[in-house]
């Protein structure tokens, strides 16, 4: 088993090695960016902005490197499923955490408000007072 795996791994040509190196470097860069954003941003919503995009992109890039390395074998397909799963679940989890934070009453930054309803014909009937106030400001 081990000898066969070593023989399969020794067939990684220069193009495949270069692709693995490139995807690993790109993924490490995005992991660094996401971690700096998580440590430095001032608010839970801003931190989520950093982690749910940059860190997910970094981990997906590294999993794509595993896909490139293992592709004729079944493990490459499993790494591809990992990429797909990360892209599906990371926005869902971030959305649920941000909803929970907003319901817990974690405050926004100064000057940041919840996005208002666009004062179109349909939204006008939904909340009449807000739309009237917005029109009065204009």
């Amino acid at each position, binding site marked *: 088993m081990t000898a066969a795996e070593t023989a399969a791994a020794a067939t990684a040509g220069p193009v495949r090695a270069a692709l693995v190196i490139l995807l690993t470097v790109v993924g490490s860069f995005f992991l660094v960016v996401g971690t700096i954003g998580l440590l430095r941003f001032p608010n839970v919503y801003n931190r989520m902005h950093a982690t749910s995009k940059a860190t997910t992109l970094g981990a997906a890039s590294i999993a794509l490197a595993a896909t490139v390395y*293992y592709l004729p074998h079944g493990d490459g397909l499993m790494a591809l499923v990992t990429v797909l799963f990360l892209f599906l679940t990371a926005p869902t989890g971030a959305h649920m955490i941000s909803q929970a934070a907003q319901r817990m009453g974690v405050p926004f930054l100064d000057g940041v408000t919840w996005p208002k309803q666009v004062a179109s014909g349909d939204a006008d009937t939904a909340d009449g007072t807000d739309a009237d106030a917005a029109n009065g400001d204009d």
Partner: protein
Amino acid sequence: MAEPAYLAWMDTVLFAGLALAAGLTLLVSYRVIRGPTVPDRVVALDTIGTNVVAIAALYAIWSQQGYFVGVSLVLAIIGFISTITVARYVTEGDIIE
């Protein structure tokens, strides 16, 4: 046996990425410990989960053992389920009603 030069380069880059991801995971734990609110800690734990997914994938390439790709996939699933569970617990006060 004599390895080609690009395989040695790939080993070096993979090990550097492995060490970098491990150090970043250690840095993220600062936000878990000192996070001002509960959602900060949940976001940081989710980030740790994503980093460990990356570490497992890197280790699968570096050690040439493809089983760790499955470890990576299962860790992604468990991280998603735990994040959803904590968000529901914070919001609803209960997980399964």
